């Protein structure tokens, strides 16, 4: 039976579902590391987040947006769930995870009309809501504990960026010598493998970079946002360090490897829906994210600025899109 179709008569294998699933696969190294280091508690946070996000997505889609198509099948809610979990500490009470999922899916995503319509990154919205509402719980970081699945007798500690912040005399209220904090900063090897305190998915640089390599290989994202975001942070901190006498505090490498920068630059800032479309726009967006991240880290009371930086830049995306329209072939001007 001969069929008819419109041109082109062939389509690429990539679908919304496959793109989203690729992101889930790219997160796998990070998820494995988080379970190895943070054990059962990490598993519980992940499972709770995924269950809650999928449930909220299904309910909103079916009974609020009244859509026929089941939107949970496109994996976008799974990505939101995993990214939310990745940005939480492993010992967060699970009910808070559900709250975060509610804000992420119901408020940040579905109330704007669902996938493709939201302005702010859902996972980050959920995280920032939790961070502002439950600051104590959200800044209590269990230290990684390898080969200890049930996580018995795990101590909590400060993240690298918190150590840097505490050492800052102007914000620190403790009697300790500033350098005691700075001397506690883990070495680069621990930062790269992820054997440091922090939220589930932000600790291991190597796992996150593996994810980046996979996303680039599968053409899911382009290199612009991660590259320019990380480069901006590195260069800005480096320039600041030239005017400072505290090399440990303003180590550009430490700033790149710690906190949520890699997780944010690779997985959050590259979210299609909430980042600019053209390459030029992506570069503007990434540089903005980088500058804001460093500004928040170095000058405010918060030790970490990635979430705020990306959410603030999300708001500028329509504007950036308007000023970064690519030059059309044959219309003159520079390429």
């Amino acid at each position, binding site marked *: 039976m001969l069929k008819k179709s419109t041109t082109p008569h062939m389509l690429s294998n990539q679908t919304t579902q496959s793109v989203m699933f690729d992101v889930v696969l790219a997160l796998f190294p990070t998820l494995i590391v988080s379970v190895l280091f943070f054990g059962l508690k990490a598993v519980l946070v992940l499972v709770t987040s995924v269950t809650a996000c999928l449930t909220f997505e299904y309910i909103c889609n079916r009974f609020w947006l009244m859509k026929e198509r089941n939107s949970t099948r496109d994996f976008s809610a799974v990505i939101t769930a995993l990214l939310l979990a990745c940005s939480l500490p492993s010992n967060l009470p699970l009910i808070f995870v559900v709250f975060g999922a509610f804000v992420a899916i119901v408020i940040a995503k579905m109330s704007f009309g669902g996938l493709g319509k939201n302005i702010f990154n859902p996972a980050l919205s959920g995280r920032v809501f939790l961070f502002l509402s439950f600051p104590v719980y959200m800044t209590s970081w269990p230290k990684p504990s390898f080969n200890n699945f049930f996580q018995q007798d795990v101590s909590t500690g400060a993240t690298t960026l918190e150590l840097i912040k505490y050492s800052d005399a102007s914000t620190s209220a403790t009697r300790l010598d500033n350098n005691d904090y700075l001397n506690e900063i883990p070495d680069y090897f621990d930062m790269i493998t992820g054997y440091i305190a922090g939220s589930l998915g932000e600790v291991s640089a190597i796992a996150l970079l593996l994810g980046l390599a996979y996303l680039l290989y599968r053409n899911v994202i382009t290199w612009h946002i991660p590259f320019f975001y990380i480069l901006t942070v590195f260069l800005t901190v480096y320039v600041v360090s030239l005017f400072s006498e505290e090399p440990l505090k303003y180590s550009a490498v430490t700033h790149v490897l710690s906190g949520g920068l890699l997780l944010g630059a690779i997985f959050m800032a590259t979210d299609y829906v909430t980042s600019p479309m053209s*390459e030029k726009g992506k570069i503007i967006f990434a540089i903005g994210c980088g500058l804001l991240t460093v500004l928040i880290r170095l000058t405010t009371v918060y030790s970490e600025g990635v979430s705020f930086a990306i959410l603030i830049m999300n708001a500028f995306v329509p504007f950036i899109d308007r000023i970064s329209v690519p030059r059309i072939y*044959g219309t003159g001007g520079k390429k």
Partner: protein
Amino acid sequence: MLFNIVGINLKKNKLSRHEAIRDIGLPKTVSIPLKKHIGHPAVAVVNEGDKVKIGMLLAKANNTISANVHASVAGRVSKIDEDYIHINTSKDEAEDYIDFSDELITEIPQDKEEILALIRDAGIVGMGGAGFPTDIKLSVPTGKEIKCLILNGIECEPYFTGDERLMLEKAEEIVIGARIINRLLGIQNAIIAVDEKKKKAFEILTSITKRYIGVNVKLLTNKYPQGAEKMLVEAVSGEEVPSGKLPMDMGYVVQNVGTVYAIYQAVMKKKPLYERVVTVSGDAVAKPKNYMVRIGTPVSFIAEKAKVDIKEVEELLIGGPMMGTDIDDLSTPVSKLDGGVLFLKKAKPETEESVCIRCNKCAQHCPIALQPFAIANSYKAGDKPNLYKLRALDCINCGICSYVCPAKIPLLDYIKQAKNEIR
């Protein structure tokens, strides 16, 4: 490349690359198209019942932009309708004036008018798929200066190998054809553009062009749609064709290598365009091959000769998978424009349009750097002024936007409708 990754790398499926061109044979009937070319339909000069020979003029170019149509077989005209002249084939017999010998002729006629008349009489049109009458394209209006002739040997549609085979087997004829056009245009600068996957053709052409003045070969990157005129001019010259202008306005004339071979045949051998190379390929064809096919040969005859089980075929394409047309009527004949017939076991999957996820792939790969998603949105919103602003009319219909869209939005369909609305 920092800001734009125009074009895409398609899986090329050039299955018939190593198959020499062979004659497909004589169908029992042919239906020769009268209005497949761009411009006015040709007007029949024969009557039903007339006996015709190969190469005999069947229909005359009507008006300036039009093309002659010749008999591709000998036989009796059975019917003349609006679209076709149908002929029942008898034994093969050709007009006497055609030179069928294999002898290479290198002596190019001096008189430009004579060359142009031979091309016009032979009914040559753009064989890469455009179908624009070649004599018009080669008549440069006074005041326009031509710098360069570009021969298009890219053939960027998947499956197609006819042009590549021509460049391998008829390389010298093509080079002489280029020199004929050079003379016509009064230049000494022809560039044969070949993509990097056709290394062998590149080598052969390079060695031949060493013996001739004014013809060179250039190797280009392999991507789709490198063979589109605007892309090709840019790749060869580094200059863009301004929006709304033709390559000729910038001093470039682009001709497909198949057309150039036909020009050689017409000028040196007095042979009108009544047959062409057709790639017969696709996964439903056991042995994909390149055939010399008489114009008007029905697809059913090709299917039979290529041993295609038509029951297995879900999609039948005349032309390539990116820009070709699918047909459901096996009596459809091959025209001067058709470089391939593809028999595919699987039709394009039926997909449901889902919501745009702003991935930017359509814009990122668009060779013209348009924003297909924005054009589709403006069309849906009925925002005509914005369609102009987004330059919807500059779209070259390459289909990349629809191809890459993960949300399976038929972007090209929307753009085509948008163009109709504002044209």
